[in-house]
């Protein structure tokens, strides 16, 4: 007989916000002690806000080992103790109400959402992008299963035979706790920033990849196949480890708009490239306009390893994302190629960070930002070269394109170079779509809109050509929609 405990579904008032941390020596009889069903009930009516209690219940529902539960609780403490960043779009950031957010997403079937609830502009975008029917329901959070599940599973079997581990983070925690515990939070500790701390406390879903030494995965691994709505998330935690001499390309996100009523997305992505390894991480993200997309992405590159971030950000109300590479071993290389498109009512605060902490390392940052119709795109970058990093090469190029006079672009490049024997190149350009170019293209029969679109696509070409073909095509179509202004 399960002992029943009543948890109030209402968010606790400030006075009772911090109950004492529950006894962590739970062991296997947690079901008896707390009642799994009660944990379900706890979330059943939908619980907003985050607290130690929420963290505890979440961890129980997921049946996590003790060390992870502790990690979550400790991280939550860090989250509470840290203040909001004092840089960036502080107005928008301070408008986030942490108590008004769901931190644990119930299984879709129970949410009772229907296709009718999905906003028209989202449906229109699916139509314009030619998204298949089943995918639409999935993307809109109306259906839990995606037909590609089958594709994913067969691919997964091939990989497993080679010793490549590719699974969602929750499963990895259960099946490969050895590796997870070894590397998790070594690249991004909870103390890094408030949102990393939040993610560390309430993370759910995300991908886990481990590639054994010397193996080249060959095909790009895509999150898209294996997401189910639980992982569609708000607080994804991704960890990729490429062991010595291995190679892997991971693609995250999709160009179709992701619609969810949960407006805070705070993911953490950690990459570890051991000696001679190669990791490329591609993201095309297109969030709906009510969403705060605050991501901490960082990689550590060991000796002669290479990490490449290919990062495309479209949509959202506010995106803050600064993919980072720590070049820790001699000869390591880092490259960040980023595109941000800010339309009406959007603020893309994107950029890159590279830390040269070893000699003969090299890095390249290429940032392309586009602002239209009052949108605001920023480049925020940091390149730091430590004294021991002799003989390194750095190249930074940030280009901003203003489509019209209502748009705004800001550039905050920072360089801290503490070593003379280095080669640094830095270029920053702001341009408008030129009248001469429009005239030239129109003189060949292209309409003004077509001309403008061609110019914008040309502007992001260095980015688009790094994408797999189908993504490039989708991205171009998406830009076309954005340029028309038909995405709400």
């Amino acid at each position, binding site marked *: 007989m399960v002992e029943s405990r009543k948890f109030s579904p209402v968010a606790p008032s400030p006075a009772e916000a911090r109950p004492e941390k529950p006894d962590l020596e739970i062991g296997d009889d947690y079901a008896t002690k707390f009642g799994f069903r009660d944990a379900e009930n706890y979330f059943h009516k939908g619980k907003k806000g985050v607290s130690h209690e929420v963290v505890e219940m979440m961890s129980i529902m997921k049946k996590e080992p003790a060390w992870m539960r502790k990690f979550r609780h400790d991280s939550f403490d860090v989250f509470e103790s840290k203040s909001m960043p004092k840089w960036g779009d502080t107005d928008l950031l301070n408008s986030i109400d942490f108590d008004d957010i769901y931190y644990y997403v119930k299984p879709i079937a129970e949410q009772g959402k229907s296709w009718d609830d999905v906003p028209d502009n989202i449906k229109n975008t699916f139509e314009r992008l030619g998204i298949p029917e089943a995918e639409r329901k999935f993307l809109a959070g109306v259906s839990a299963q995606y037909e590609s599940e089958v594709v994913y599973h067969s691919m997964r079997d091939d990989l497993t035979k080679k010793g490549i581990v590719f699974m969602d983070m929750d499963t990895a925690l259960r099946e490969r706790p050895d590796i997870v515990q070894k590397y998790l939070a070594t690249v991004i500790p909870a103390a890094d920033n408030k949102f990393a701390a939040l993610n560390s406390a309430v993370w759910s879903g995300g991908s886990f990849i481990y590639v054994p030494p010397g193996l080249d995965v060959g095909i790009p691994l895509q999150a898209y196949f294996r997401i189910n709505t639980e992982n569609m998330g708000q607080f994804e935690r991704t960890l990729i480890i490429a062991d010595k001499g291995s190679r892997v390309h991971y693609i995250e996100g999709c160009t179709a708009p992701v619609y969810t009523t949960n407006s805070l997305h705070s993911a953490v992505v950690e990459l570890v490239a051991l000696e001679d390894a190669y990791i490329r991480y591609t993201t095309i993200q297109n969030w709906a306009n009510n969403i705060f997309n605050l991501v901490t992405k960082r990689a550590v590159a060991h000796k002669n390893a290479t990490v490449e971030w290919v990062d495309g950000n479209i949509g959202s109300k506010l995106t803050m994302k600064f993919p980072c590479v720590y070049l820790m071993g001699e000869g390591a290389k880092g490259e960040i190629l980023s595109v941000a498109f800010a339309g009406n009512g959007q603020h893309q605060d994107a950029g890159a960070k590279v830390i040269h902490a070893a000699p003969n390392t090299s890095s390249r940052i290429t940032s392309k930002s586009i602002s239209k119709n009052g949108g605001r795109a920023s480049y925020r970058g940091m390149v730091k070269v430590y004294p021991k990093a002799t003989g390194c090469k750095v190249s930074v190029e940030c280009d901003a394109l203003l489509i019209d006079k209502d748009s705004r672009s800001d550039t905050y490049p920072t360089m801290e170079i503490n070593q003379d024997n280095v080669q640094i190149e830095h270029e920053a350009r702001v341009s408008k779509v030129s009248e001469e170019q*429009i*005239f*030239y293209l129109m003189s060949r*029969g292209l309409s003004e809109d077509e001309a403008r679109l*061609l110019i914008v696509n*040309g502007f992001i070409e260095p980015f688009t050509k790094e994408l797999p073909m189908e993504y490039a095509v989708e991205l171009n179509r998406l830009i076309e929609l954005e340029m028309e202004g038909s995405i709400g």
Partner: protein
Amino acid sequence: MKKNDALFVIDDLHVSIDDKEIVKGVNLTVGRGEKHAIMGPNGSGKSTLTNAIMGHPSYAITAGRVFLNGEDITDLPTDEKARRGLFLAFQYPVAVPGVTVSNFLRSAVKARFGEERATSFRKDLKAKFKELEIDEIFATRYLNEGFSGGEKKRLEILQMAMLEPSVALLDETDSGLDIDALKVVSAGVNRYSGQDVGLLLVTHYQRILNYIKPDFVHVFMDGKIARSGGFELAHELDAKGYGDEIAAGAKAAAAN
């Protein structure tokens, strides 16, 4: 002047840039299959004329009309003029980074002819590259980015070849070309302007006219056509320079 019969008519055109009048009343009729050369010194307004006809946003047509196949196209947007068969080979083609020559041309061909031409596009393009002796690598290069002057001019004529205009305005196509390039480009222009095409070739050197033989030569001075004649007029200018014309013009102006 029978506006309805002629292929291309410029009727008393006046063009200003920032309130300064540059083209001061030009009258010109180009019939089907006719080649007209406009020669004049620098600063006479030749380029302003052709760019304004095409619809350059900085140039204002303050008076006069332009007719193509009997239709008044003066105030149409640039792309509509192009789709009706008007073409301008620019003197200084602008670069469009990130847009490959091939993609650009495909869009242009589609705008002019519609989707059907798309199927034979690659073959057509390849053939034209060969005829104009342009390295195929240019198909994948970004439009006009890093191209030499000569390469840009060849590419302008390549575009003319692909778009099959009814009226082609060539703005100093010869500048920046060495003798061999000039021959190839001229052969191309001749090849792509058949019996039905009207050509308006703007230049201030006579040399190109040895390869693209004009039916009519017009001397352009101070925003107007000062004199018109046949091919021999080009030789006369070549021998004597524009000095005489300028003097004649100044004399006429002083007399008024």
